[in-house]
């Protein structure tokens, strides 16, 4: 059974000023809608929402033609770039603002968690604020009283329960706010990036609680995040929004791949790797970088390729003692493997002022899984200094190792390298 259904939903905003800007346009809109009984004339204009481009019209569609449904018990991650419309979508769903066109159907009680600690008043004590915040989220007083001990326990703020919240540290406020939210019992939970709060200890607790809610208790959850690891952890399904439109709907894993792929390939299509250098010593100039025989930021490995060629050419004005360092990372930034021979062999090259060339042929693991990887490239003197850093230098597409009639190894479920028996 469906829990949420979006029917061609759109939300239009006007840039710059509030309302339609002029009183005359307000009036003509009112005239057309209420007296003549027509549709809102300004809904016909407007363009899709592309943040970086300057538009022709003042009206933009923050969301356009959103059409999907969520089954009961699904945990759906919504991902997309800044300004793609994620928060607007959640706002519509949590009824903070109404859509411009279309219809949203919902089955069940919604609690939206667009922020933790909404309605906290600095002058009131922790206990009073638990009640306040809980009631704003739609709990009754009796419900809160029943769960008060649990909430206080979860937040770990027992000692300060009767202290005004203004004396709390910001972390404590967030803990208290999240604890209340975590004890809501709605059928549908709408969560905007609120897990990235508190210290590491509390984050673990928060994610754990979210997982319980999502997996154990069979509730429908809509979850917006930029943190791919937590989307992957929590969600089964994923929706990618791009410029206010749905770009992709599928499993969480597919959606993340789709999003990261489009994020890396679209914007930096034919960019040179030398332009990706984030930090470089002043006396050093990198003239050319080639990985897998291409100077560009995207490349793919052929299925049986086991060697990755790295070439760095540059000029220096001062002598350097260094070695190449290359890290292969997952798209979310987790390092998977590193070429850091300088570190574990201790052999470094002595470069004299003038031109230099590094050529390294790196042996890749044989049973490499499929997927997209990010390569970070450095010249370093181990544990002393980096001469240049390119943290996000190339996106490597790997098809994954497989024998004929077999399946490629999958990064998402089987890990980075396959092991073999002796």
């Amino acid at each position, binding site marked *: 059974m469906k829990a949420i259904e979006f029917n061609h939903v759109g939300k239009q905003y006007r840039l710059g000023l509030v309302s339609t800007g002029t009183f005359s346009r307000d009036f003509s809109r009112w005239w057309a809608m209420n007296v003549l009984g027509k549709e809102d004339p300004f809904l016909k204009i407007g363009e899709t929402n592309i943040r970086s481009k300057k538009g022709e019209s003042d009206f933009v569609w923050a969301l356009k033609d959103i059409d999907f449904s969520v089954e009961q018990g699904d945990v759906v991650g919504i991902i997309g770039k800044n300004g793609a419309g994620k928060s607007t979508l959640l706002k519509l769903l949590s009824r903070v*603002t109404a859509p411009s066109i279309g219809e949203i159907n919902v089955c069940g009680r919604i609690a939206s968690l667009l922020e933790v600690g909404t*309605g906290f*008043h600095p*002058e*009131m004590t922790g206990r009073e604020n638990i009640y306040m915040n809980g009631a*704003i989220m*739609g709990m009754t007083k009796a419900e809160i009283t029943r769960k008060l001990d649990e909430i206080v326990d979860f937040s770990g703020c027992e000692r300060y329960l009767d202290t005004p919240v203004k004396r709390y540290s910001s972390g404590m406020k967030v803990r208290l706010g999240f604890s209340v939210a975590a004890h809501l019992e709605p059928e549908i939970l709408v969560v905007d990036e609120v897990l990235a709060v508190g210290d590491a200890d509390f984050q673990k607790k928060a994610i754990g609680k979210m997982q319980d809610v999502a997996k154990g208790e069979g509730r429908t959850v809509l979850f917006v995040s930029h943190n791919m690891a937590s989307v992957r952890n929590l969600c089964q399904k994923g929706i990618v929004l791009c410029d206010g439109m749905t770009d992709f709907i599928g499993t969480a894993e597919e959606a993340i791949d789709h999003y990261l792929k489009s994020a890396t390939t679209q914007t930096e299509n034919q960019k040179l790797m030398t332009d990706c250098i984030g930090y470089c010593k002043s006396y050093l100039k990198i003239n050319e970088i080639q990985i897998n025989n291409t100077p560009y930021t995207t490349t793919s490995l052929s299925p049986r390729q086991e060697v990755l060629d790295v070439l760095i050419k540059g000029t220096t004005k001062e002598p350097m003692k260094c070695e190449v360092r290359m890290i292969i990372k997952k798209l979310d930034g987790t390092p998977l493997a590193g070429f850091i021979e300088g570190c574990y062999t201790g052999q470094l090259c002595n470069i004299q002022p003038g031109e230099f060339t590094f050529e390294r042929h790196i042996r890749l693991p044989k049973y490499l899984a499929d997927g997209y990887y990010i390569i970070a490239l450095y010249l370093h003197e181990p544990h002393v200094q980096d001469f240049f850093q390119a943290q996000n230098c190339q996106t490597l597409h790997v098809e994954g190792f497989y024998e004929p009639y077999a399946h490629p190894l999958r990064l998402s479920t089987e890990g980075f390298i396959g092991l073999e028996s002796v």
Partner: protein
Amino acid sequence: MRKKEQKQYWTMRIRPHERLWHIDLGEIWRYRDLTELFVRRNIVVQYKQTILGPLWYLIQPVLTVIMNMVVFGGIAKMSTDGIPQAIFYMAGNICWFYFADCLNQSSSTFTANQHMFGKVYFPRLVVPIAVVISNLLRFAIQAGLFVVIYLYFFFNGADLAVNWAILLTPVFVVMLAGLGLGFGILISSLTTKYRDFTILFTFIVQLWMYATPIVYPLSMVEESSLRTLILANPMTSIIEAFKYATLGQGYFSWLALGYSFLFMSVLLLFSIVIFNKVQRNFMDTV
């Protein structure tokens, strides 16, 4: 292919436009706990970290009444229909305070709470309703002071004729609350788009007080057109009737009270409809 389909039903539909008269009163009732908490918050927060605390509820009217006595009674020598000045000014002022506080505080509903409203949904009407209720406490305390002063003058032989109309006091309070709430939420709905109204109305409320017989009795106004104008003010009949009920001097007319009541009902209905319409989209313009 036969497939057993579960019947799909929806508990909520979110649409761009809702019918104008669609007001979910049941929902407001379901959020009564929130209303109660807002009331407590309004009361508790107001005088936190003050030494005198709720005593300020008393100091404010006392100072106002003294000021009125000096300016209107002493300098301008305006009549009070033979009623001791202190008690005469007090009667008008506590009513006016209640009305004006309801109006002023609920007129900033949207602008003052936009942060909260932008993050979570609950029936927005809960906030101004809580304002009206929490001001009731203040009104009660001031009414207590009024009774004390009243008894003092009464036993000192002042000519105060309390009568049956005192039984109507709850109705007066409801009318004051209704007018304050009605104007307040109407203003708050208007100010989401055009902030001019905030400035305009704080100013108007100040002037409005002088168009209401608080520092003067209605009987002083003899010119008929001016009198009609003052009677057109829906506050006039309520305050005059309250003075009549407690002091024995004042203008009591069922017709005027009926007019005020009708005015209040229409205003309240109208402004709730407007408020309800604005709340759906105000986050985009506020």
